[in-house]
């Protein structure tokens, strides 16, 4: 069976890279931890994991958007088929960089929220953990999201517009979400719901990138 390659990006302050790496290995990816200065990427999947890149200076993801890797992502998306996944801080970086529309603001109640929440994605409802202080998705016109698949909160925890927990750009293979799927894949005594997200991505790569049915 073909093993797809996944690169997990480490910025200064990233702290979810190991769980992400382990989860993707478990799903069947060949994983590689790469530095944010890297621009020569030859993997099928690039993951911007959770954490506090550059200490969240100025605002979450604001400084990371200038890293060589993030700056090269826009060209890479145009050049070849590559799946980009942003988890939590990764979502913040992707919106700050303009790779995904909108912006992510401080939670509506101003608190750090750390708990399991129910989300819906592709007609499935399941729970995943969130852990963020800045997770309130904002966009000036919701019409701008008409070509995106939306991952929604069942009970909006942070004041996100239209209950948005994540976005999936089907055309450009970019997915980003605030919940942490990597925390619920192999962790004992936790659900295995994170597999739903990673297996979905693996299937997309299989079908759309390699034509494996």
């Amino acid at each position, binding site marked *: 069976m073909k093993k797809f390659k996944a690169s997990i990006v480490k910025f200064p302050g990233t702290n979810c890279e190991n769980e992400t790496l382990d989860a993707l290995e478990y799903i069947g990816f060949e994983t590689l931890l790469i530095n944010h200065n890297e621009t020569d990427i030859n993997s099928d999947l690039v993951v911007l994991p959770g954490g506090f890149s550059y200490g969240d200076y*100025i*605002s979450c993801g*604001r*400084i990371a958007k*200038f890293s060589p890797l993030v700056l090269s992502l826009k060209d890479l998306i145009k050049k070849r088929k590559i799946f980009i996944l942003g988890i939590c801080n990764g979502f913040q970086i992707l919106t*700050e960089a303009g790779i995904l529309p*909108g*912006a992510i*603001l*401080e*939670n*509506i*109640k*101003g608190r750090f929220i750390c708990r399991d929440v129910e989300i819906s994605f592709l007609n499935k409802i399941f729970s995943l953990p969130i852990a963020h202080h800045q997770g309130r998705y*904002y*966009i*000036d016109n919701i019409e701008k999201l008409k070509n995106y698949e939306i991952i929604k909160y069942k009970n909006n925890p942070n*004041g996100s517009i239209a209950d948005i927990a994540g976005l999936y750009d089907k055309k450009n293979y970019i997915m980003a979400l605030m919940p942490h799927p990597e925390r619920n894949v192999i962790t004992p005594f936790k659900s295995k719901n994170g597999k739903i997200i990673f297996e979905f991505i693996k299937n997309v790569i299989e079908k759309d990138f390699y034509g494996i049915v």
Partner: protein
Amino acid sequence: MGKYLFKISTKLKDEIKDPQGQVVEKISKRLKISDEINVRVGKYYEIIIFASSLDEAKMMIKKVAENILSNPIVELYTILSFEEII
């Protein structure tokens, strides 16, 4: 080469809810300081920049403010003051 000091502030756009501002409002009311109070929380920056002219310095500061200090989708920046320093 001149040396210029810029004072800049950033804040969320007025149409966007500001939880930190709301907390300051709430506490001001609770302490009976004022019932009519509207607070927007932002950030303040002092930047010293070297440039050949004030116009060039302003252009450089605009780039810093638009790209690094603020996100134009949700935030506004204001140049509060600028001066040449020796």
